[in-house]
């Protein structure tokens, strides 16, 4: 039994606060049955996909999500090959601008809580089939959970995401999925940052306290300028009357 090659890029901190994204690189082409041989405490849920020319949902198994038990719950994905028929069909769907859809059942990612409650229904997402073809099956699947670890949504995007209309000739490119799987839990929103602000205020007031020059009043600081200005004004005022008087005399 081969161990899963999993690479965990741990905490990537975002600008505001941390989002815990566990990225799991999946090995492709493994059978689901192999995956189910894994430890019993692990839990596996099917990841299904559907692509039809008439856009009616007929979901088939694409792979399996393996949920690891324990405190540090991780998710990994093992996926099947795309068969020859599927590849042709996918290209057909892409040519009529159909949709490629995926779905997972509603589960809790904490494997120990699996048995507690059974939820009905699926979470679905879609991407244009042409984008799937043109990106050579390289997609990014994100599982979104709520606070309790229950799946609330799934999203799929392809890289690159655009449909430019380029034809994919090589059938081999459409055989293996190149999937990046990540799990996103809700981010804790920051509250008002009072502590840091108060600290800063304190620092500022301390700075002021150290520097008595700052605390002086306007007049205390600039008394010499004001005095100088006043003397200048007085001097110019007193200089004027004689000039005027002189003119009167003449």
């Amino acid at each position, binding site marked *: 039994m081969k161990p899963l090659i999993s690479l965990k890029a741990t905490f990537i901190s*975002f600008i505001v606060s941390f989002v815990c994204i566990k990225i799991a690189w999946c090995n492709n082409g493994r059978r689901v049955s192999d995956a189910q041989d894994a430890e019993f405490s692990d839990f596996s849920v099917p990841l299904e996909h559907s692509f039809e020319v008439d856009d009616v949902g007929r979901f088939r198994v694409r792979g399996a999500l393996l949920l690891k038990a324990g405190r540090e719950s991780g998710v990994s994905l093992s996926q099947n090959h795309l068969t020859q028929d599927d590849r042709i069909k996918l290209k057909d769907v892409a040519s009529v601008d159909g949709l490629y859809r995926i779905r997972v059942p509603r589960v809790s990612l904490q494997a120990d809580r699996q048995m507690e409650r059974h939820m009905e229904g699926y979470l*679905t997402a879609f991407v244009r089939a042409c984008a799937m073809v043109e990106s050579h099956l390289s997609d990014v699947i994100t599982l979104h959970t*709520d*606070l309790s670890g229950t799946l*609330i949504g799934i999203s799929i995007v*392809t890289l690159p995401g655009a449909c430019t209309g380029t034809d994919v000739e090589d059938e081999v490119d459409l055989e293996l999925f190149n999937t990046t799987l990540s799990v996103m839990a809700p981010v*804790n929103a*920051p*509250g008002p940052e009072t502590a840091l*602000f108060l600290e800063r205020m304190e620092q500022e007031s301390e700075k002021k306290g150290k520097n008595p020059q700052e605390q002086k009043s306007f007049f205390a600081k600039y008394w010499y300028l004001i005095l100088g200005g006043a003397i200048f004004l007085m001097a110019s005022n007193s200089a004027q009357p004689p000039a005027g008087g002189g003119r009167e005399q003449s």
Partner: protein
Amino acid sequence: MTVPMAKFFLLSFKVIMLCLAVDAVFEDQVGKFDWRQQYVGNVRFAHFDAHLQSSKKVILATEKNVFAAVNTRTGELFWRHVDKNGPEGNINALLHHGQDAVLVVGNGRILRSWDINVGGLNWEIVLDSGSFQAASFVGQQDTVKNVAVLKKTALSLHYLSNGHQKWIENLPDGETVDYQFVYSGGTGEVYVLGVLPHSHIAIVTYSVDDGEIIKQVSVEAPWLSNIQSSCAMVSQGILMCMDTLSTSLYMLDVHAQTQMTQIPLESLGLHVAPDFLPVLVSAQPNPSRRPLSEFLLQLSPDHYLLLQLNNGQIVTLRDFKPAMLASFATTGDKTVVAVMSPKNKTACSVNLFSAETGRRLLDTTLNVNIDPNSGKPEKLYVQTFLKKDDSVGYRVMLQTEDHTLSFLQQPGRVVWTREESLSDVVTMEMVDLPLTGTQAELEGEFGKKADGLMSMVLKRLSSQLILLQAWVAHLWKLFYDARKPHSQVKNDVSIETLSRDEFNLQKMMVMVTASGKLFGIDSKTGTILWRHYLENIPSNAAFKLMVQRTTAHFPHPPQCTLLIKDKDTGLTTLHVFNPIFGKKSHVAPPALPQPILQSLMLPLMDQDYAKVLLLVDDQYKVSAFPSTKNVLQQLQEMASSIFFYLVDSIQGRLSGYRLRTDLSTELIWEVVIPTEIQTIVSVKGKRPNEHVHSQGRVMGDRSVLYKYLNPNLLAVVTESTDMHQERSFIGILLIDGVSGRIIHEVVQRKARGPVHVVHSENWVVYEYWSTKSRRNEFSVIELYEGMELYNSTVFSSLDRPHAPQVLQQSYIFPSSISTMEATLTEKGITSRHLLIGLPSGGILSLPKMFLDPRRPEIISEQSREENLIPYAPELIIRTEWFVNYNQTVSRVRGIYTAPSGLESTCLVVAYGLDIYQTRVYPSKQFDVLKDDYDYMLISSVLFALFFATMISKRLAEVKLLNRAWR
């Protein structure tokens, strides 16, 4: 020496003043751009102040928990007291005697007495708990001294002068007997009547002096279930009851008898209309005297009788048929009956009859015209007075189904009307006014097909001539008005003279009220230009108003569609109308037999320029309105790019659908939020008419941070089901409405709703209650694409693989808020403000600049370059930010913003109990000259400069010439 000093200080002061943002209005601008209208709500009790012959007050207590006095000459408010919202402030009873009005408030919790002259509080006392049943004045020897309050288990008597409790007594058998009625006839006794349904009536007699039980009797009455609805007290303490099953009157003297006397209505020759509960109305003009022995009996919706109890015999004084309404009124010692009877379809008449004899009084006819756009008359309040020749004169206040009060006087003049349904505005839109006839004539040329060069030229010339004529007429009017004093220039607004002004500042406000009445209000003056009452609106209806065609497509009239949905059944009807004239459109709306889940306006237009409205029913089938061939064809072409979403908050399910060419739909994405943990409270998208001018923000280092401008982004607000203050939280989910991709998910821990959200541009602002710190907090989320744009030409939700960068910051706000909205301008160049309605009645215009997650905690050179305000955890309310200065807007429920033709100006309407309209200038009036702009100075300077250049040119020429000669 001191003068230059003072000048210096003055100058520096001026500079400081200029630097500070002065947003407030100047004193002479008060009421120039804004107006406020105050309402009271649907009237529950009304009494005319009659203690002075010259009094002109009517006091009203309403279903909106408002107690007010209205001037009967003008219809304006003298004073108004707004109590708490909800059952706490509910007015249970209004008693009026002389100058005092006694109110029982909050299911018998508080007893208040008001002086109605000035609206001041005389006294207020808190009563013992217990649900309120009835209240009445108690008088002795022709003076009213006490108030009796009957509760479920106790009767208390209070002094009218100071509210002190005289005595309180428990009622015997309070658990079984349902006491409902209290009566006093000025005899020194208080009678309390209770009923044990379908068994007997219990009558307890108390002494007014000490509350001692004098007598206690029980009378067999197996047919009776409710005293208040089927009985009345007439003459000297005779209880008159109506039994519907046996259609007979029962009579009981509460002083003496222990047996009820039955009088079948057949014996009086009367017949009750099938399926109608007969109503008895009696009159007690003075609470210290016995009631009149005459009473009214209503036998069918349009049949009243005036009956008299004469020595134990019932005599019919007068038969009123047809009669819509009838009521008693007293002046001096004369009591009259006012009866309103229909004349024809649009008119009614009111006549007075003497209560004692039933004789019609001469010259008392009052004609009432029934407006087809208002509801049926519901209640008649009569104000009577004695004329000089001792005959009775009167005026009436008519309350109609659509919550309108109209005050009429003889011979049929409407003195005033109050549209009280405007106290409950549900939704509104602002519509541009149409062009004037001449402008439209000019516009019309472009719409029509060319029919020859010559005729086109002639048409152009003729329309230019008309324009010239109109301009001359306008100039003449200006000149004519300028000679008159300013106050005399009348600014009459009528529907005919309405036209768009230069800057599109005057618009038509279309308001939808909860009662189902629609209004068209001129935004400049607040004049109601049209009203339209929609009958048969379910009481729990939800409304959505949409503008399908604006006034821009001239020969086609503008068109609004109101979607009315019954919240229980989901059944929906459409009302299509012209928003300028209020007339119902001749376009027939589609019949909608299925409940409607979602409606959406598409930017598609049919050949008549009406936007297409899509309605999704519960079978997920889509119908279009209008559904012409052209529209269906366009829809087929566009189907694969039309997406919509549905929200089911009960199951916590958000789902996305795509339209198919056959107008069916397919489910394409699904997000389910488990309802055990959190529930969806609201979903907010962006406004479709919003423009964003700049794609990014220039940073301190001259690089650009691009905004994530996804027009399909939805902000979903959830609240936790666990309300414990440590574990409660609110969640904000940003979901792309087309692809269903969750863009961002935030949880605010230890927080509780109600959450107010504004979602615009690339930001979401929300306000919540922090249970940890016990305060209101604001939080702002901003989304950025990063330093480079993925696809700068077009935004597609299906092709944006990279998640945006998310920034968030929170602030403390020193007040709770009622509602919140963002300003909106034509091109989105002007900076944004948040308009916040506070419970205190103020409307705060808070610059969005203060809610910016990029506010730095430590100031750097770059942040200074960017003009970012350093972070401070508290948002301060500055008084000059209040846009409504002292014009308090009570109980603001919503704020509506609309762009005007001026980029700097945003029109604002705040509605709640009051309506307030104003303009705001978030970046000051950068495109308008000030009111006090000195045209004289600038033109004289211009002229002076012009002449100076002319002269100096001439001088220079001369000089050159001279030099050449030299």
